[in-house]
């Protein structure tokens, strides 16, 4: 068969969001790939220029709705760095706990999407069932299940509810038991390994040069984690390890995320034990001086997120810039796809964990 360009998307039961992946096929082999994003562009950065600083926090939620707390926290960190605010300790611990719970939730959502792409709805339903527990925890905390609006500039919105420790303890114990089940559904299934091993290989050098970060980079052997290399909140005081694998194929990226979920449980347990009492919300200044800049970077579940703000002298920002990790990883997609068959595309792009909200902003 001659070479042809095939459009996978924008309307496609491929899950993951609204984007178009054009692949050039020679029979069944991919010889070229051309991802097209931008269907979900909402003008976020421009909208942010017309709003007061507290009003942007619910908008930051919707940057990546699968991991909303992470982006809220990134935005609040940016503004706090610009205004040079020192967040109270209790707020830092609460934020860390909530961020790690959000990381587990986001990885479970990734696992669910991967299951449907590969054809197993069982994995999807089991992961989503476990995610419900974490959503219930967040609902007890701040009243919403998906877009939380919980972090504030200078702390968090409200204090933890009663039974916080008991609920978290129960959920984490139950979840670690279920992880064993989930892993045996996938790790020890030869079909899963057949599909994921030796597909989508990207070497550490290539990933670094292309700017890939997060679990996608750690799956290729590079040990870079913002929580360890440039600690923020209380990560500097907690004891955890960076999860990484050496092979660089889809299975390695999958393993990195499963290990990260276990490490997150570990982090949450430590943080709950060490949480001090005290204030949890600081009264932020209204205005930021004209020309003052601030930036922050965090380890988002999908990579390294980065935000940069320039103040305007009043209570609107002059410019707010967002660097989304998946936007950069999409440009690495051709490297991961060329040479493999078209039936491998869901496995590869599923292991990369696309979230279109943050890509297109």
């Amino acid at each position, binding site marked *: 068969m001659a070479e042809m360009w095939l459009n996978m998307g924008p309307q496609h039961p491929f899950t993951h969001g609204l984007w178009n992946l054009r692949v050039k096929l020679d029979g069944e082999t991919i010889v070229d790939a051309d991802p097209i994003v931008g269907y979900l562009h909402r003008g976020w950065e421009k909208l942010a220029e017309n709003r007061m600083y507290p009003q942007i926090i619910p908008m930051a939620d919707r940057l990546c709705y699968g991991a909303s707390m992470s982006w809220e926290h990134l935005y609040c960190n940016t503004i706090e760095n610009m205004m040079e605010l020192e967040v109270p300790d209790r707020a830092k611990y609460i934020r860390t706990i909530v961020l790690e719970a959000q990381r587990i939730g986001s990885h479970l959502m990734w696992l669910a999407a991967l299951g449907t792409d590969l054809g*197993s709805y069982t994995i999807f339903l089991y992961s989503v069932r476990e995610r419900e527990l974490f959503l219930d925890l967040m609902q007890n905390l701040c009243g919403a299940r998906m877009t939380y609006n919980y972090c504030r500039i200078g702390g968090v919105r409200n204090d933890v509810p009663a039974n916080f420790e008991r609920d978290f303890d129960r959920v984490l114990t139950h979840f670690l038991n279920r992880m064993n089940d989930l892993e045996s559904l996938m790790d020890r299934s030869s*079909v899963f390994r*057949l*599909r994921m091993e030796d597909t989508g290989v990207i070497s550490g050098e290539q990933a670094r040069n292309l700017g890939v970060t997060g679990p996608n980079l750690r799956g290729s052997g590079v040990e870079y984690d913002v929580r360890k290399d440039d600690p923020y909140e209380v990560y500097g005081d907690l004891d955890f390890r960076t999860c990484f694998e050496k092979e660089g194929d889809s299975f390695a990226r999958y393993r990195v995320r499963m290990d990260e979920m276990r490490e997150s449980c570990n982090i949450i347990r430590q943080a709950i034990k060490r949480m001090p009492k005290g204030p949890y919300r600081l009264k932020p200044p209204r205005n930021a001086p004209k020309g003052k800049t601030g930036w922050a970077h965090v380890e988002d579940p999908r990579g390294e997120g980065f935000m940069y703000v320039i103040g305007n002298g009043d209570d609107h920002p002059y410019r707010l810039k967002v660097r989304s990790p998946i936007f950069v990883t999409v440009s690495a997609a051709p490297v991961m796809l060329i040479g493999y068959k*078209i039936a491998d595309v869901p496995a590869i792009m599923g292991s990369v964990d696309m979230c279109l909200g943050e890509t297109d902003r």
Partner: protein
Amino acid sequence: MSLYSFAYGLALWICEVIAWVFNTIGATGIGGWLVTPGVVEFLQIIIVALIVFIVGFLVSITFIWEERKVLGRLMDRRGTQVGFLGLFQNFADGLKAFIKEIIIPKDVDKWVYDAAPVILIGISCFMIGLIPWGPDFYLANLTNGVLLVFAAFSIAPFAILIGGWASNNKYTVMGGMRAAGQLISYEVPLLLSVASVVVLSGSLNFLVIVQQQQDSVWYIFPLIIGFIVFIVALIAEIERIPFDLPEAEAELVEGWMTEYGGMRFGLVMLAEYVRAYVACSIAVLLFLGGWSGPSFIWPEVWFLLKVFLLFAFFIWVRGALLRVTTKQILGIGWKRLMPLALVNLGIAIALRMTGVF
């Protein structure tokens, strides 16, 4: 009382009633002709065919219900809830397929596009009639029953290929070719396993095979490798997960069925489940002893029970495993199943030659 004798009695009664009507109004010629054995036998065959077809059809539809409920339980959810225990869902789906608008894309090859689902459902319904349910409940007792069923089974790749090609769509062409490749390459281990059963029993007649299994042992025990090969090849033939790639939703939308809408799609889905029913029935007849079992339950009920249990096993396999890619499907078909099927055939020939069977 066998099905044919019951149908003969019914046909005779109907013919006599109609003949009485004609005799009363005075047309004794037609009335006399109607009770001749030729006409009654003709009506008898039609009644038997109707009964067998309707029963087989209803069982296929019940397969859909069983799949949804059992799969739901596997995945920690309830299956369909429409109607009593969810049984009404099939009719709701059928009604929905009926009332949808039929959209035909512009540049399709009209005759071929129309012919593909017709061939598929026609072949599947033809196969329903060839499956005997009990020693007295069958439509046709052919000496070459097994051969004819598998011949009809193998026309499906042809229908899928022309359906995919005629739809004028890149995705469906790829889906059709993949499906044809998969189905054709799994025919070989399938037929080799069947050949081993035929070697052991010495006949191609379903009734004789089941009778032999009742006399000796179910053929699953000496031919366990053949059974496993047969089951895997069967899952690939009826296109279920894990061998689902021709209809893989994640990549090719619906595969070769993408451009079929409304009742055409309903017929194609129905054909899939009818083929699944026929496949499970053949597996039960050839390996699991057909309708043999304790005599306090009717043999037809035993047969149905075994078929449903085997299909539950297929659903279990679907719930637990993922889709396999084309390269791996063909690899499994040729590199792993073929040698095992040949080994199995060797075992069967050895058992037969040494006189054990």
